[in-house]
């Protein structure tokens, strides 16, 4: 009777996971394979002709190279900003100070706003003539140029996009780290205080070790998200000036849906995914081991 139950259970487990698995295969895995196939199919060709021409082309494509560099810088700086802001705000919010609910809600606002809207916000704020940024800076530094351009300035366009993305993304890291902080038992701090451990020692010996798993997970997830960021760039700069703020998502989108070179776009998308996979491999292994 018992073993019969176990046999039944083993199979009914499949039924529970079947619908989700099926959808993932049909909507994500199957199209991914089609993209893989297109990436090794001659331009405009059908059937099973094999070519590596598109991948060879990617090696000599200055725009793609620039876009890869942009994406790496975008991800790296976003993570740095998210981590610094997220951790310091989580620490500040974890002290149960009066008014902390208000501050938490305000600090969360950027996250509740769609990417597109965030891009529009900063596009308008940084507008050289009618935006709010230049007058604000001129209040502090009156000699600052009145019609200073941000988003059409080749050196400042990209940092501006990164700052907008830091604004957009720090709350999620903050929320995750705050949840982690709250999970650290108070007694640990009390015991350390009795032992006479100072603020810094408590931070490095209790807080950071207690947070290490969550920090890893938060930053790894954040990396994957930022690597694919699309709407913010589209709304804020559209990739311009020129291709200076282009990231991989926007470039692949344009190559596919505006230039209609499907095969080349597919090769780019495969490269992009391969890089993302390699970058997130440590995280996958880590989480896989822990489960």
């Amino acid at each position, binding site marked *: 009777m018992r073993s019969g139950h176990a046999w039944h259970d083993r199979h009914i487990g499949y039924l529970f996971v079947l619908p989700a698995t099926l959808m993932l295969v049909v909507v994500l895995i199957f199209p991914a394979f089609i993209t893989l196939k297109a990436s090794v199919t001659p331009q405009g060709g059908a059937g099973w002709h094999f070519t590596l021409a598109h991948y060879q082309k990617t090696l000599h494509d200055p725009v793609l190279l620039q876009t890869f560099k942009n994406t790496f810088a975008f991800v790296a700086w976003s993570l740095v900003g998210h981590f610094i802001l997220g951790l310091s705000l989580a620490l500040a919010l974890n002290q149960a100070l009066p008014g902390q609910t208000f501050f938490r809600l305000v600090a969360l*606002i950027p996250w509740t*706003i769609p990417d597109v809207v965030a891009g529009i916000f900063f596009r308008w704020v940084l507008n050289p003539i*009618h935006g709010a940024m230049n007058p604000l800076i001129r209040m502090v530094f009156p000699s600052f140029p009145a019609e200073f351009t941000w988003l059409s300035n080749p050196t400042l366009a990209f940092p501006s996009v990164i700052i907008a993305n830091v604004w957009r993304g720090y709350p999620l890291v903050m929320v995750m780290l705050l949840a982690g902080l709250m999970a650290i038992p108070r007694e640990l701090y009390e015991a350390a205080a009795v032992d006479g451990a100072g603020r810094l020692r408590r931070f490095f010996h209790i807080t950071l070790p207690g947070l290490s798993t969550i920090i890893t997970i938060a930053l790894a997830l954040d990396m994957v998200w930022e690597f694919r960021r699309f709407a913010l760039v589209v709304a804020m700069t559209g990739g311009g000036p020129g291709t200076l703020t282009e990231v991989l998502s926007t470039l692949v989108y344009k190559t596919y849906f505006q230039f209609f070179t499907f095969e080349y776009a597919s090769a780019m998308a495969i490269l992009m995914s391969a890089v993302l996979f390699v970058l997130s491999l440590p995280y996958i292994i880590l989480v896989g081991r822990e489960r």
Partner: protein
Amino acid sequence: MSSRLSSELRERRVDAVMSYSLLVLAAAFAIFPFIFMLSTSFKSEAESLSLPVSWIPKHFTLQAYSEMWTLKPFGVYFWNSIVVSGVTAVLSTVVGALAGYGFSRFQFRGRTSLLAFFLATQMISGVLVIGPYFQILAALDLYNTLTGLIIAYVTICLPFAAWMSKGYFDSIPKELDEAGLVDGASRLQIFFRIICPIAVPGTVSTLLFAFLLAWQDLLWAMCLVSIDEKRTVTLGVAYLVGEFVIQWPMLTAASLIGSLPTILLYLFLQRYYVEGLARGAVKG
């Protein structure tokens, strides 16, 4: 003893001062673009382009908020977004919870690999699959339909939904299932009648995640919808910003109204979200 107490008190005060300064600065950073948008949305178009730039509208007007419904079809965009996000939230939560329950309660063969597979699909970029998915939809006559969008969004949310609910179900004692089995209930009955009601906090966070994802997405909507009647709010706003002459008051008004559901949902339900994150994703 008393000196330690006083030094501790001082330390706490320093912490509080530092925390408050940081919080005030961060709040200013978080809110400042938002305030400027709000201010612009209450201006006339002429005033939004007049100098010097003002933070408070001189002639307060709701013109932009009325024109977005009359001059542009934002009513239609809104309805589309509500349908797409609502259906996505419910479907992905149900399908994800089924999978999460399967992973949590059954030791079937290939379970670990399948879990890893779910996790790995989260790494798939939209742009990797969107082209072929677009072609499939076109072949099925589902291009330019909300159904095509919903199927995509539900699938994207599934790994997260399954992962989160698995974590949640793991924290519910298995004895409850066993009690149900003893009473002669089927596994599906146990899932829906006993486990689901307890798992509601976990479900709320998944609902919220899916709703937000669908509401905020631009990439899929941009590729799968080309006609005005099927555009979502984010898509409508993105088209406004692409127009040759941007009407900033209307664009900011539409952006703010378009963000309203996500802002409200989040403010009301953030406790669930944090709880859910802590249980589902954060707990190592």
